[in-house]
């Protein structure tokens, strides 16, 4: 059953068409990857979905309702939340407060936001540091904090923009496991990443964006062997890299 749907979405910046007539549908509980060359329009597509920017044309449906043009907090209240490509913690709040923001304001009825905040921190493995501030965290931990905050809103759909970027192997694996766990809880995950071994290992389906347009979609295997995708994005020896991480 479709939970998130984009219909003929287009976003232009001056002469540049960053997102060009993109339509897609994601089923409830699915984990879907989004890849594409730099500047393909991936982050822009996420911004259109999450309400940070409004599309020039097209419609976004969440649970069958039109959410185009709503502001980010309204969309969050309807159960869709995203993380940022560059981490954006609340610097002066402790980790538990960071997470509590999601629990308090996410728009779901949470009995005890603080308890919920500890739960999600526990889940991403940061609960021991609950009372410290983010400036003491490593990049990997900050990315996990982004995820924790998003989870605290108890969302239906999560958009992850490059949560594995810039992480070492160990951290990447931790994130991959985390995304897997989130998927196992029945949440819908839509994620962008250039780290193929991470993305391919968690995604059930993969969309490929090139130059603003959706050029392919399919299972990770199909995508990795798609000529067009290899040319536009993966490159010739991508197979090994992805394979190496195939676990």
């Amino acid at each position: 059953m479709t939970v998130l749907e984009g219909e003929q979405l287009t976003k232009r910046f001056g002469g540049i068409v960053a997102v060009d007539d993109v339509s897609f549908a994601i089923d409830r509980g699915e984990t879907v990857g989004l890849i594409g060359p730099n500047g393909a329009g991936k982050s822009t597509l996420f911004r259109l979905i999450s309400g940070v920017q409004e599309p020039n044309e097209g419609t976004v449906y969440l649970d069958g309702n039109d959410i185009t043009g709503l502001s980010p907090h309204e969309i969050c209240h309807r159960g869709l939340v995203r993380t940022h490509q560059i981490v954006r913690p609340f610097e002066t709040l402790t980790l538990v407060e960071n997470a509590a923001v999601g629990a308090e304001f996410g728009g779901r009825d949470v009995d005890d936001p603080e308890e919920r905040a500890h739960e999600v921190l526990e889940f991403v493995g940061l609960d021991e540091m609950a009372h410290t501030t983010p400036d003491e965290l490593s990049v990997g931990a900050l990315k996990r904090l982004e995820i924790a905050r998003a989870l605290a809103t108890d969302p239906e759909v999560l958009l992850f923009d490059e949560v594995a970027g810039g992480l070492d192997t160990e951290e990447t694996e931790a994130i991959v496991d985390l995304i897997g766990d989130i998927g196992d809880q029945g949440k819908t995950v839509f994620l962008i990443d250039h780290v193929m071994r991470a993305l391919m290992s968690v995604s059930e389906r993969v969309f490929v964006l090139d130059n603003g347009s959706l050029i392919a979609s399919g299972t990770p295997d199909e995508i990795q062997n798609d000529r067009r995708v290899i040319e536009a994005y993966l490159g010739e020896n991508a197979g090994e890299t992805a394979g190496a991480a195939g676990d």
Partner: protein
Amino acid sequence: MVATDLVVQSLLNGLLLGGIYAVAALGLSLVFGIMDIVNLAHGHMLMVGAYVAITLFTAFGLTPIVGMVVAFVVLFVLGMALQRVVLKRVVGEGMEQPIIVLFGLALMLQSIGRIVVGSDAQATDIGIPGNPVSIGEITLSFPRLVTFVLSLALILGTWAFLKYTTTGLAIRATAQNNAAAQYMGIDTANIYVLTLGIGTGLAGAAGALLSMLFPITPFVGWSYLLKAFAVVVLGGVGSVPGTLIGGLILGVSENVGVLYLGGGFRDIISFTIFVLVLLVRPHGLFGNSGGGE
């Protein structure tokens, strides 16, 4: 109904005044745009520059045109010292810290001014004989023409400096990304010192120009600051041509506006325009708004 002559006359008066407004705001705009510091003491620095010119004028009979150069140099040095000794310690501490430091400075300058020169209004005059210039029914004040030309020269000079010199390029780069500028081999600490020097030096020069037209007291700082803000916002922060246009818009709208609304509205007109522009174009008429994430 207001006579056409009067409208044209006011328009021209407004333009001449606007040139001065622009130069009075130029330093504020640069420091704001480049260093992201709102120089709350800008008006008071204008005042100091004006007193430099007044002192040279009354003590040595020096024309404020020369006084302007001296005022620039004096304030340039003051600005550099300010950055080197004080401000560099508070930038990056949040926007209110520099604001308070500069407020403290404004308070000091005003009180020192009061102690040193007293609170009587003083002025210079241009020191070159010149009659009002008449074109038909229209009369233009000679000192205003001279100050207008000098203002334009200062603005143009500043613009060319930023646009065409290597140092200017370095200043612009530092404004956008300090860390990156350092990676390019730019000594950004020095650039800041220089920028504040130029910003306050321009305030000094503008003060000297103002002393030719308006009486100066140690208390004029705040009102010039507000005017200068209006110009900066109209023109867009950090934009030199924008500052000129902002100044002209302000001068003209004030002078023509009072013809129709009455003199009591002079400042209300300018601040209302200022707020409207802020709302319609939050980054000024000629500023640009950043996008992306």
